[in-house]
């Protein structure tokens, strides 16, 4: 599904330049669950943005389903995002003036789905994350965990091929964090979609079969051996950690 080849991303910051990623290569299979770990500011979010077609590499290629995302026009990238990717952010990023149901519906607007169907799918998605009775509430009336559930429902409502989550439990307490992780894992297993989760939390990181460790813009892979052996329904991937 994903093939990243010698990706580098350099930003202009003030008078200087910042190299967020240095010649990173990675292959992600369909339906894989990958976590991304590393210190703050070392390139985790940059990798996520590249995977989500929200940014373009300075050099190298990001191939998604055989298409070079870096070569697509902006309008094509927008369509790829609309059809294939669901995002979950650390700060939930819900629209404060929309209800929970309307926030979830917003993800379906670019797909030109009729209003009636949008509402029905939105309510179904909220039910799937256990918030059917909170559909008419505004984000300000929901707890942090509930808001993140709405964000997850919004990411899932269009049945994307890929879920990209940037620190989805970063703003939650320990109990809620665990609930969200369990929820996301369950949905990943049920739907068979590819899921990439950026996290600081090693306990969250180890729930995936493998973890990409990003340090100073370079990537290495860690196999979470116990997880790979017992929980992963997919065919086993490489048993040895791969240094890239």
């Amino acid at each position, binding site marked *: 599904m994903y093939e990243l080849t010698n990706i580098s991303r350099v930003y202009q910051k003030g008078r200087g330049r910042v190299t967020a990623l240095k010649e990173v290569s990675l292959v992600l299979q369909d339906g894989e669950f990958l976590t991304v770990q590393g210190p703050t500011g070392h390139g985790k979010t940059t990798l996520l943005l590249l995977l989500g077609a929200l*940014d373009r590499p300075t050099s190298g290629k990001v191939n998604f389903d055989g298409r070079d995302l870096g070569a697509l026009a902006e309008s094509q990238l*927008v369509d790829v995002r*609309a059809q294939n990717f669901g*995002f979950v952010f650390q*700060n939930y990023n819900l629209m404060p003036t929309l209800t929970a149901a309307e926030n979830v519906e917003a993800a379906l*607007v*670019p797909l030109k789905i009729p209003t009636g169907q949008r509402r029905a799918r939105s309510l179904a998605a909220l039910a799937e994350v256990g918030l059917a009775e909170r559909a008419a509430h505004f984000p300000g009336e929901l707890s942090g965990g509930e808001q993140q559930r709405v964000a997850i429902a919004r990411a899932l409502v269009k049945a994307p091929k890929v879920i990209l989550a940037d620190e989805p439990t970063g703003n939650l307490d320990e109990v809620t964090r665990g609930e969200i992780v369990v929820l996301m894992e369950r949905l990943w297993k049920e739907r068979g979609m590819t899921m990439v989760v950026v996290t600081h939390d090693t306990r969250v990181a180890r729930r995936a079969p493998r973890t990409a460790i990003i340090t100073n813009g370079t990537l290495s892979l860690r196999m979470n051996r116990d997880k790979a052996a017992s929980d992963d329904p997919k065919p086993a991937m490489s048993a040895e950690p791969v240094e890239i």
Partner: protein
Amino acid sequence: MVSAWFKRVESSPSAGNQLLALVDSSYAKQNSLKAGSAVTIAGTKFTVLGLVSTSATASAEDIYVPLSEAQKLASDPGKVNTIFVTASSASAIATVQTEIQHLLPKATVTTAADLANQVTGSLSTASSLATSLGVWLEVLVLLAAFGLAALLTTASVNRRVREFGTLKAMGWHSRRIVGQVLGESVVQGLIGGALGIGLGVLGAFLVTKLAPPLSATVGAAGLGTGPAGPFFGGSGSGNGVTHRPFAHTFAPATHTIPLHLTAPLSLGILGLAVALAIAGGLIAGILGGWRAARLQPAEALRRAE
């Protein structure tokens, strides 16, 4: 009328050999003159016979002397510089003007209508100036209002960076986001327009209801005539002049016109207000939408995080 009065005074035995003058009351007040005072004009001493009162709108001279004396003082015996002519009727004025012009080709012949036109022209020019100034002020205020609306909309877009970045991440095209911002801005413009029209109607009502009444006083040009009666003058006879037999009141005729301030409204004005409100919303929305469209989702989400 003044000269006729002068003739009667001069022909009176009690006038003696004194040179007599009438003095405007305002001038007299400024120079502490009264009946019996002496005034010197071009080295010649005149005795103030009395004071003359004119309306504020009439053109008044300071001192009135018999024509013959004025001609002597000007060393122009037998000559005058201004002649006021009264026509028998308004319809005869043009004919009279033409005849005088023919008889005195070097003279400038001006009718009351010409003077009125000059005044009207001046008033018209002043009115145009005031109108132009008003129009320019309105344009400046509108530009300032539009500019402020655009700035506030753009600032709002900057505050909603996370929101727009998320929408772009979900697959919203820039044009849809621009449409969102534009729609919000137009609705805000309409709400503002409705409030503004309401305030404007209330203001117009209050101006019409509460404005203090004004009045304009119009007087006859020059000295007017009035019924004979007592007028300013000394009661003493220190200079051998008695005043009372020659008393004549020069009272100007005046007419007061009441003016009521109003702030008229019309459907056209209301329609223009609505159109301007929508236009303001559109301009602000276009600028804000352009700002939102330029947001790069990665940058927007980074800034938000």
